[in-house]
């Protein structure tokens, strides 16, 4: 027995005080995933009103091709791809973080009212604010809605501390209230605002501009760094309160910090794209199942799969019904529903 231990080679990345355990085979799977991501990204740049070959895309990107191609790539297609990657990635990581924190695989950022809160604020803005201030403020309104719903859920769930169960139940109540506000505005608000509200509510990356991307990136950069710093604490929080505390975590403070991180990430993403329901639910599932279960690996994989999902959804929306351009949200929702049913069937078989 001891002999079997001895022959096992030690695997570690160690440089001075720095040390990490390499993810092992998961690293290879992650590399394949990144490769797939790049392929789909290139495909997304090629596809559109008229097809450009990968070579033409490359020339356009490096400024050597036709000027019209460069315009299409740099102003229309590339921003969409980048926005899809950023927003999908942020939703994926936020979803993983929430599923870990509440120890429930069915959790998603919408559970804390992020999607519904952003939607209610955006619809209110489109109905009553658009004429008063510049429409450029829409993402700001949306993120304010997302953050205040998240804060409301946390505050209402507080009772000498916050338990995951109270968080989930309060989240359902607050999300339902936010949805009621959205519906009310859609029914009673000015008719001309309703159509744009519907498009926003579906979620899409069309019309993405470099300004949107710069703003989103500015939000996500510090959050991403925070995530990288706190990953090991998130893994411990996923064991549940008693174990986490037994291992020396300051459970309540860490939970508040990590929840804030998740809500801010998802809120920032949703404010630029609309809800994109299900991304934050499915991406972590696929990441864990296909790439690996330890938190660090799953976080990178969730980001990649989230970005991939939104990119594929956007590509489908552009290609399948061309020349019409359908919002990515429709395809994310369709994929999500199919995935959900499959998950239920699998869970039922396992229960048998």
């Amino acid at each position, binding site marked *: 027995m001891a002999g079997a231990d001895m022959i096992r080679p030690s695997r570690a990345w160690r440089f001075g005080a720095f*040390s990490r355990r390499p993810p092992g085979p998961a690293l290879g799977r992650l590399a394949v995933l990144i490769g797939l991501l790049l392929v789909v990204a290139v495909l997304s740049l090629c596809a559109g009103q008229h097809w450009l070959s990968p070579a033409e895309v490359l020339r356009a990107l490096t400024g050597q091709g036709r000027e019209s191609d460069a315009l299409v790539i740099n102003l229309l297609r590339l921003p969409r791809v980048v926005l899809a990657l950023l927003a999908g990635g942020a939703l994926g990581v936020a979803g993983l973080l929430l599923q870990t924190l509440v120890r429930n695989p069915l959790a998603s950022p919408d559970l804390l009212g992020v999607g519904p809160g952003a939607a209610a604020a955006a619809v209110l803005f489109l109905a009553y604010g658009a004429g008063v201030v510049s429409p450029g403020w829409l993402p700001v309104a949306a993120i304010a809605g997302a953050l205040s719903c998240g804060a409301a859920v946390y505050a209402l769930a507080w009772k000498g501390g916050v338990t995951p169960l109270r968080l989930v139940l309060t989240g359902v109540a607050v999300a339902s209230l936010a949805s009621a506000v959205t519906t009310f505005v859609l029914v009673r608000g000015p008719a001309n605002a309703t159509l744009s509200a519907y498009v926003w509510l579906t979620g899409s990356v069309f019309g993405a501009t470099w300004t949107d991307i710069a703003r989103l990136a500015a939000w996500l950069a510090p959050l991403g760094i925070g995530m990288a710093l706190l990953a*090991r604490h998130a893994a411990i929080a996923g*064991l549940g309160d*008693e174990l986490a505390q037994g*291992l020396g975590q300051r459970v309540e403070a860490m939970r508040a910090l990590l929840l804030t991180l998740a809500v801010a990430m998802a809120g920032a993403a949703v404010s630029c794209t609309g809800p994109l329901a299900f991304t934050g639910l499915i991406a972590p599932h696929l990441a864990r199942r296909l790439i690996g*279960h330890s938190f660090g690996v799953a976080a990178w994989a969730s980001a990649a799969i989230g970005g991939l999902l939104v990119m594929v959804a956007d590509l489908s929306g552009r290609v399948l019904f061309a020349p019409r351009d359908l919002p990515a949200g429709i395809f994310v929702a369709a994929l999500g529903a199919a995935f959900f049913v499959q998950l239920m069937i699998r869970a039922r078989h396992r229960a048998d």
Partner: protein
Amino acid sequence: MTVTPAPLACQNLHVRYDSVPVLRGLDLTLPPGRITVFVGSNGCGKSTLLKSFARLLAPDQGTVLLNGRDIAQQSSAQVARALSMLPQSATAPEGLTVHDLVRLGRYPHQNWLRQWSREDEAQVDAALHDTGLSALRDRPVDTLSGGQRQRAWIAMTLAQDAPVMLLDEPTTYLDLAHQIEVLDLIDRLNVERGKTVVMVLHDLNLAARYAHHMVALRDGAVVAAGAPAEVMDVALVKRVFDLDCQIIADPLFGTPLCVPFGKGRRPPASS
């Protein structure tokens, strides 16, 4: 000459649970390097006492002393390096492997830079080896049998490398063979690694066999504390469990063995 303080003690400990008093003024000193077992009927406060020692519950009055100092005044990481706690029916996140789980036990020794030092690796390997899980290290915890799973959790607390281990009913939901397997493991950790063990056990006879020090509780107060051979008698079982019994010597270990009888079925008259 300085005297090393006992690793765990409590003074005048009062604990409430949802404003209901559960522990009423306990004074206890747990012997270092020994196995202490808390026994008592359901709701007597034995789990609450264990959680108070682990600082999972804050006392209403009184103090818990860890290495002679108030546990409430020590940092979370400091406490976690001095004692590890395995709660009742812990569940691992789905799909997490044994090795990944045991690795998490190193948390109180790590920081952002240092997340897999030679010491971490050596402790995790030793924990897997001592619990007989080396061959199962890459298996997801949720695919293990009940006994293996409990050993994986013990391995995690072992990797935490704290001199004191607290375990809340480590044998619940296990069949008899696995109960013995887990208790033998805990006994071995006490002997070979010198761990101070404090645990709650439901089974009085197993408690008597494995404990060096037994603490019997009733209604949040200590009824008796001491070596099982000294404290466990008919009167104690009557007071703690409200149960009539005969105490005989365990034919294998010589420890007290409780043979209970209730109000119903009586043994056939033999004479």
